[in-house]
């Protein structure tokens, strides 16, 4: 747009960013509070982090969440990429609108609906609920996000490079692996990362679809948070924030180095 920003523009951006970051900053600061009373400042300390190491239930939940996220993000990335290819490359096939609608729906529908629907499905097919049902549920939830990101990328690049490869006698599968895949790789990687964080973050759908022995980290945190603020929870949250922030910063630096226009993996951005 035109000219420079006015004071009003600057104030909007400044206040907006302050609103977004101050609560997180406070959470991080209080996680280093020596006092058990959350509101009383007792000096800097890492005691809550040390206590976390002894919290068997919390560590166990974190381990389960990590495994669920790794598995479901990987499967969702494969399925989501295939779905995006179908939507972009197969033209106007029969049921295309229904197919794209079904892929997009989980992106925007309230989680309680998706969670309950998946649970009823698992009950109907009589699977024991636990680790694997959460993985399947998260694949269902996140593959739509992957599809959207990859689809935007597929629409953005010149298809004639693929045609050139095939004209020169390269078989379709090899063309896909050596030409198409490297070109869409940044979007596929962003899709995987988004799927991973969404899975790590999900409380509602996991609550519906989990079973005995598969308490994920958000479920664990939620059950503690309902009882009030605890310094240990501040510490868990700070660790999660640090991990995610490092990952996102590294990813955006990486994609900025490789090409000038990084794929920003966010729903609604397409």
């Amino acid at each position, binding site marked *: *747009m035109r000219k420079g920003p006015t004071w009003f523009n600057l104030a909007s951006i400044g206040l907006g960013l302050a609103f977004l970051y101050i609560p997180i900053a406070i959470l991080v600061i209080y996680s280093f509070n020596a006092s058990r009373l959350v509101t009383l400042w007792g000096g800097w300390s890492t005691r809550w982090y040390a206590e976390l190491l002894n919290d068997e239930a919390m560590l166990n939940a974190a381990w389960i969440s990590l495994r669920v996220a790794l598995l479901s993000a990987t499967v969702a990335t494969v399925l989501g990429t295939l779905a995006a290819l179908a939507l972009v490359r197969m033209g106007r096939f029969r049921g295309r609108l229904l197919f794209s609608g079904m892929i997009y729906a989980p992106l925007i529908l*309230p989680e309680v609906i998706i969670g309950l629907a998946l649970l009823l499905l698992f009950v109907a097919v009589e699977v024991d609920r636990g680790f694997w049902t959460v993985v399947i549920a998260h694949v269902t939830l996140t593959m739509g996000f992957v599809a959207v990101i990859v689809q935007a990328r597929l629409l953005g690049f010149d298809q004639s490079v693929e045609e050139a490869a095939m004209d020169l006698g390269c078989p379709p599968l090899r063309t896909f692996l050596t030409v198409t895949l490297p070109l869409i790789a940044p979007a596929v990687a962003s899709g995987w990362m988004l799927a991973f964080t969404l899975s790590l973050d999900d409380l509602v759908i996991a609550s519906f679809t989990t079973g005995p022995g598969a308490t994920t980290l958000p479920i664990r945190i939620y059950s503690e948070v309902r009882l009030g603020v605890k310094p240990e929870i501040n510490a868990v949250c700070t660790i999660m924030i640090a991990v995610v922030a490092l990952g996102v910063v590294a990813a955006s630096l990486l994609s900025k180095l490789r090409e000038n226009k990084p794929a920003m993996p966010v729903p*609604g951005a397409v």
Partner: protein
Amino acid sequence: MTFENYGLLFSDSLYWSSYLRSLQIAAVSTLLLLLLGFPIAYGIARAPRRLQFPLMVLIILPFWTSFLIRVYAWINILQREGLLNETLIALGIIQEPLVWLATDTAIYIGIVYSYLPFMVLPIYATLEKLDESLLEAAADLGCPRWKAFWLVTVPLSLPGIAAGALLCFIPIVGEFVIPDLLGGSEAMMIGQTLWMEFFANRDWPVASAVAVVLLILLIVPVVIYQHMQTRELEDAR
């Protein structure tokens, strides 16, 4: 096969008042999000080009951290001895601590906080594409800047506004975590009612009926949103 569960939804005021409350909270918070999100998106779109990308990353970054954590962060601030009351007392604005937690205000704060990136992003995307020669033309023809804003910028950013509004409104209607952690216990949003029927009362048929009616309420906005998204992608082709 019975429709008894649906009959219950209409005869018991607990259910339909939950639906109404959810729709009302979603509508009001979407409006608040628009009032807050538009100036931010507009400010970023007018910033120097090399700053726009880092600024958008800063807006989006909190979206990547856990939703649950971001809601929880507000409990730290809004509780009785929390930072908000302490600050207000220190500044001499209030004498006695106010009740923030377990109120509708807390729900609105939590929702606006969590959904802000979803509103800023689509609006920024349309503002960024806006052809600035249109504004120059308006200025050349003697149109004051505020008038050009209302007559050119706002109408041209309507697709982004509509996308942002739907992207927020639809999930907010079914929101569970925010009202559960920040809201009071006297009135429930429909997501909480569904959760209660399912987990506390173990009444799966009623929970399912609640979900189906919620889905029916949301089907029109969802279809509109998907239609807009597909058209956008087709245009990009």
